[in-house]
């Protein structure tokens, strides 16, 4: 079985206190569309943080599906822009989650 580098959860960022400086010093966070958060796997601090924020753990594929919905919606919105508007902005890039 492949060793996992990351784990994923869904948690709504309520603002102040959601990620504290000490959390950030111990855990490498990556916030993704759809309230998906990528944190290190097999990591006690990350597990405690997921519990603290009442996060719902997702598999990589489940998290990818949530992210894809958000990215596709953003890409569709961009595709519907006029050529002038497109010239002034950047098409949202695909996001590929890692195991």
């Amino acid at each position, binding site marked *: 079985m492949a060793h996992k580098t990351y784990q994923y959860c869904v948690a709504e*960022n*309520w*603002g*102040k*206190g*959601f*990620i*504290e*400086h*000490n*959390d*950030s*010093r111990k855990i*490498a*966070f*990556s*916030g*993704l*569309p*759809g*309230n998906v958060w990528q944190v290190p796997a097999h990591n006690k601090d990350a597990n405690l943080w997921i519990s603290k924020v009442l996060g719902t753990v997702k598999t990589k594929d489940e998290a990818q599906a949530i992210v894809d919905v*958000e990215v596709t919606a953003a890409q569709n919105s961009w595709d519907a822009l006029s050529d002038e508007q497109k010239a002034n902005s*950047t*098409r*949202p*890039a695909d996001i590929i989650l890692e195991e």
Partner: protein
Amino acid sequence: MATYKEVIGTAITNIAGDSPTTVNGDVWYNSSTSIFKFNTVLTAAWSTGGNLPTGTQELAGAGTQTAGLAFGGENPGADQTNATYEYNGSAWTGGGNLTTARYQLAGAGTQTAGLAFGGVASGGSRSNATEEYNGSSWTNGGNMGTARERLAGAGTQTAGLAVAGDVGPKQQTEEYNGSSWTSGGNLGTARYWLAGAGIQTAGLVFGGAPPTGGLTATEEYNGTSWTNGGALGTARYKLAGCGLQTAALAFGGIVTGGVKVANTELYDGSSWTASAAMGTARSILGGAGTQTAGLAFGGSIGDKNQTEEFISGAGTVGITTT
């Protein structure tokens, strides 16, 4: 076991409060709180701050981490906004509205003496309008000589700096004196969607576009002309910045391939070094504060309302004994 005095050569100082020094490694006993304390250099880190009431991107910022100001921008699914929000270190509350709703504007100053200039107003018209904030409402200031958007701002309400942007040669600088703008020295590298920091006589700009993948170029202003500074480690545009010419902070942005980044870099007056990344990658965000207490808010990210607070530098750690 050897005593502290035997090892270090001096006894631990007894102070009715915190040490007046900030020397790394200083140890003392705070007799007021009965806690042993020591000064240490804290690892830089971002944390989440209070969310903006409304998701906003392409906005501007001013002020500090505990007295920040966010204004203008674009709300999701809507056009330009004239909304202003004030941050107190934990939550945003509504302030007075801009007279001219606009996005891709620039800002400078403080929460109680802010400055907004440039941007794209209703109907897509490029704006040269300047507005001054007094802590509760905006009033019109002198117009910039050249209307422009996606520019950088720095300085104060009475000594502001508007740099580059998407107009003409994209190198123009203007200086504000509290009532009118005059021309300054041209940037060496034409650009827009750059970030700025510092003051009118010691300004700093970094990053930007073109090219599509962004620039690493940094330039320093002395009140008259621009000279090259150290290059950013990560080329990017649509980033934010804050701080001073000799102590600046760069964060977020877009790199090659249209990918948003969370990268943070610190400038010391000659070179950039990588620091702790933001929790969430984002572009076209707002920035405020200092190199040791920065503030990132809004931008092209999820609900576009998220705030993050950066800290680095010396701090005090307490050790409670029983």
